């Protein structure tokens, strides 16, 4: 795969060739373009930012300007093989509902998010006593789009409570993979592949 952000690279590698995907919060369409060009996917997206949507359409992608909190409701059940939510869960008003929508629309769902329990974040909060500004979370608390910070263990607890099956999980520290052992402490990013079992 061409130079993709590490969490997107994990998703791209693990999407079955020729499948249909909906990337919710697809940004400028980098992942969708890679899936279309390298895995022959029927790749569609949703994105909040008008300039990004324009960029996607100019790349020949089918992308709708919309809000993950409101507009997912208009997609039919099981209409794609994979619904993807990368680095967006923590920006939604109701992450739990967004997750339910993903698993309604997609047969499976990829979800990636930054881990708020990473040791750098913990140290920053512990010693600084201020909301962490790290390479992972570079924006101050008052202007960050991340309104629902979560940890890997939080996410595991939520999917367990909702009866969602974890089909795969990958943990990243920078560009490198890290082991599931102590991931909640060591991983900056997590990618989960989920299904309704």
């Amino acid at each position, binding site marked *: 795969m061409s130079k993709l952000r590490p969490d997107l690279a994990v998703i791209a590698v693990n999407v079955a060739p020729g499948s249909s995907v909906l990337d919710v919060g697809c940004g400028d369409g980098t992942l969708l373009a890679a899936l279309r060009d390298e895995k022959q996917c029927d790749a569609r997206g949703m994105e909040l930012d008008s300039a990004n*949507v324009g960029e996607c*359409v100019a790349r020949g992608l089918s992308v709708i*300007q*919309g809000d993950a909190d409101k507009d997912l409701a*208009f997609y039919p059940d099981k209409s794609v093989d994979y619904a993807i939510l990368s680095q967006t869960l923590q920006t939604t008003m109701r992450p739990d509902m967004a997750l339910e929508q993903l698993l309604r629309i997609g047969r499976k769902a990829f979800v990636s998010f930054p881990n708020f329990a990473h040791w750098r974040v913990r140290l920053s909060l512990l010693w600084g006593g201020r909301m962490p500004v790290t390479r992972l979370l570079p924006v101050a608390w008052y202007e960050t789009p991340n309104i629902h910070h979560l940890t890997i263990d939080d996410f595991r607890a939520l999917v367990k409570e909702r009866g969602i099956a974890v089909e795969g999980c990958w943990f990243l520290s920078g560009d490198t993979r890290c082991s599931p052992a102590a991931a909640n402490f060591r991983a900056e990013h997590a990618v989960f592949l989920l299904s309704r079992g």
Partner: protein
Amino acid sequence: MATARNIDTSKVLELAEPLPLDSGRSLEGVRIAYEAHGTLSPARDNAILIAHALTGDQHVMSDHPKTGKPGWWVRMVGPGKPIDTDRFYVICANVIGSCMGSTGPASLAPDGAPYGMRFPVITIRDMVRGHIALLDALGIESLHAVVGGSMGGMQALSLAANFSDRTRAALVIASTARHSAQNIAFHEVGRQAIMADPAWREGDYYAAKVDGGKGPEKGLSVARMAAHITYLSEAGLTDKFGRRLQDRAEKTFGFDADFQVESYLRYQGLSFTDRFDANSYLYITRAMDYFDLAEEHGGLLANAFAGSMARYCLVSFDTDWLYPTAESRNVVHALNAAGLPVSFVELSAPYGHDSFLLDVPALDRVVEGFLKQ
């Protein structure tokens, strides 16, 4: 018609068969005036049909024969433009009911007199039937895309839904799948202005005009003034005119055009009457008011697209209050429900509904990108 400053470059197709209409009636001897630019590929698969708006015409990139003004979408259509005539065979046809060469109420009926109000009420789908007849005549089985803004967008939707095998893509700009009560209301104001003009004579004014008399120019110009307001944004009007006075330092305490905005609207209304037929205005606004694509398909918009395999792109503008973003979203949701590939973007532009005709670089990028595939 009076002095033509330019030679009309349109071609005219005469239909051998009567055109069936939604009203149950049919039209004999239909003429369709159109322009085509670029070269049709040997596989005949690079044709783009551009559908024009209410008062538009086939002169999409050639000078208007009556006003001498450049084509209405020269900024979008031409060699190297987003709708690239070096690459695509671009067709634009005057809709039936209009007055720029296609059969309309000003045309002569089989009895040799102008139709006037004897012209049958037509619909958007009837206009599209005219386009399909043209595609048949040109030997184009399937379009690369149908593209339109405003009423042109309605035709694009209607064509993609009702003649689903005839296009592989539809680009719908600043449009809607149905006319709202507000849309109908504004049109009714315009129609009443025309019909209240004594010179309208129940639509039978053509003979009087030939004799040097007047047609319902007053009424038509008021209709255009009212409509023109709906094409602009409040902020756009304020920027352009504010409360500035027209060539005077003081208000006159009379009813001259004291304000620049009044003078502008009067000019817009008056100049419109030089190029447009009042009865055509009645018939075309009626067609738009009757448009409800869901109603044609059992009340569910998604059903309209059940047979479609096309790609869709919808664009709205944040300052367009005539066909606001919610109308485009309504179509997008239906296309989603039908499982069709669709793109949608709301662009920011200050000009209101007319933004689709004006300088909005983001629109160029979207149009070019969508058509490139």
